[in-house]
């Protein structure tokens, strides 16, 4: 598999008053296309800073970062915006959907900034919502959706530009355990279809589904382990007492999408 992310001696230094804080210390990692990687560490370990840099939301103080075949560590703000728009899909702990805006329009948003025309935008957003099992709820507003459904909308939004990777920051942090399993199962399905996914989490419960675990402490990478046998979220879900069936494949089982109602 080709290398998708390559960082060399990536550092981020903050100056707070007279103190110098090393948020990242010379991090060098390679992540191949198609990997499902979990970045772990206690708070303050630098994992969020790394996610910001990998997500092109922030620039490193020093070091290099190549995304695909493009060096992105020295791009200006608008060029970074374009990289984020085309290459990276974000999933946040708090979903970050626009309130009072339909699921469809939320998913359309990245395409708006990509300059896609309205008709194509709606088509792509619609098919992406179907893919995450919300084909019947395209005109619902976030307030009308459960937490799990909102996160699915957010995942559809991350996928809609067909990005190089998905960056998920504590994607299950605001969800109950069953819904968390469903989201992890969705990520695993996407990963099996070839999507590169990076999860930032401090929960071992989430990391066990990843094929590779990077551990951080005080801004430095301290452990890089391959997990040869990640847990299968689908199997764990199936083992749970049945509440309902789940739409995990790219199928469009509309009845099944109601399975998450009230679960979060």
């Amino acid at each position, binding site marked *: 598999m080709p290398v998708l992310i390559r960082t060399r001696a990536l550092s981020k230094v903050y100056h707070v008053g007279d103190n110098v804080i090393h948020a990242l210390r010379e991090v060098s990692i390679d992540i191949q296309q198609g990997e499902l990687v979990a970045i772990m560490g206690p708070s303050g370990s630098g994992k969020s800073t790394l996610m*910001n840099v990998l*997500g092109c*939301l*922030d620039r490193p103080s020093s070091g290099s970062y190549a995304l695909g075949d493009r060096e992105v560590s020295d791009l200006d*703000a*608008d060029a970074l*915006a*374009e990289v*984020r*728009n*085309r290459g990276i899909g*974000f999933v*946040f702990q708090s979903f*970050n959907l*626009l309130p*009072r*805006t339909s699921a469809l329009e939320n998913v359309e*948003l*990245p395409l*708006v*900034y*990509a300059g896609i025309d309205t008709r194509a935008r709606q088509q792509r957003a619609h098919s992406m919502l179907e893919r995450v099992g919300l084909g019947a709820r395209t005109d619902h507003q976030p307030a009308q959706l459960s937490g799990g459904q909102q996160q699915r909308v957010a995942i559809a*939004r991350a996928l809609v*530009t067909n990005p190089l990777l998905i960056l998920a920051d504590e994607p299950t942090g605001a969800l109950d355990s069953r819904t968390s399993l469903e989201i992890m199962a969705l990520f695993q399905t996407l990963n099996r279809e070839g999507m590169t996914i990076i999860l930032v989490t401090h929960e071992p419960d989430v990391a066990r589904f990843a094929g590779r675990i990077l551990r951080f402490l005080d801004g430095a990478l301290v452990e890089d382990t391959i997990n040869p046998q990640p847990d299968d979220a689908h199997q764990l879900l199936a083992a749970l007492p049945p509440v309902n069936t789940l739409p995990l494949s790219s199928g469009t089982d509309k009845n099944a999408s109601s399975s998450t109602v009230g679960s979060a």
Partner: protein
Amino acid sequence: MNAIGLLRVALRALAINKLRSILTMLGIIIGVGAVIVMIAVGAGAQAKVDEQIRALGSNLLLIMSGATTSGGVRMGFGSNFTLSEDDALALNRELPEIIAAPALRGTSQVVWGNTNWSTVLFGVTAEYFEVRQWPVVRGREFEPSDLLAATKVCIIGQTVARQLFGDADPIDQVIRIKRVPFTVIGVLENKGQSLMGTDQDDLIVMPISTARKRVLGGNQAKQRSVGTIWVKVREDEDAKRVEDSVRQLLRQRHRLQSGQDDDFSLRNLSEVMAAQEASSRVLAILLAAVASVSLIVGGIGIMNIMLVSVTERTREIGLRMALGARTRDILGQFLVEAITLSLLGGLIGIVIGVATSLAIGEWAGWRIQLSPESIVLAGTFAFAIGVFFGFYPARKAAKLHPVEALRFE
């Protein structure tokens, strides 16, 4: 994002806080409305002055008889009849660039049938109507024979016609002025109020010879004296120069030595009018300026609310940036929102301003003149205010750092 998309996003954002948006717009609404009303009222006042100038007649000089001094007490102008009909004749003869019309003034009770009315009488020559630019709309003017023979005919103003005759036709009716019967031969055009607010249509004019012999009687010593001479300067003549020639000629005729004061007063009424017009224009500009201050205050209100909005929506801005919004996308979004606020306020202000102007015209009876220019001006001003006061908050939003914006609580 295209313009329609930006507008939709802006309208949605404004609709979320409807009351706040309306209150913010209120400043612009009041400002635009006030500018439109003030310009309409100012233009109306100016149009009225213009009309009065037209009514008075352009390039008009008024010569009044001079002051007398008796026992060291100096009386005002007009207290002594130093002017005469001969002065007027001489002016007409010597100065081809003017027309002079002498006038003798008096007041009297006039009677027709069982109604009566107190009015002003003027004894005039045939030139009077041309000099005052005051045509007879019904009936006829004086014939030269009327003046020569001092016939008992008169021409009445609209007010006198209304007061004495009501709806009846005054032509060929006989009225009594100081017990002398006069035949009404004409009615003057409506001239309206003078600058001082007196009713110019409340008068009766008659041949000057008739007035002297039959009505006003008078001064045996000065058989030909008159109180005033109206002078019309012909178009394209320099009124200032003509004024000097008139003064020279009269001084010569009155045998005044150099160093002696004029025994008459010469006033250029057009100049008085022009000054009045200028002052009414200054007033209109002043009113509009005061009104535009409230527009600027409204703009500050918009800036204030946009700053609040940017702070409130910091996370949304961070999210949009994470999804690929560039600096100009965020700048555009908030700028369009501010402009939408100000333009919407401007539109409502225009409607209210026009309605208020019409209402003032209707209920207060003031002259109102609504001009499309003032509406376009107010609209453009509102737009400019949106751009000017929206730019700083929008720039603040666009300059946010994505990481900090996303993390903002």
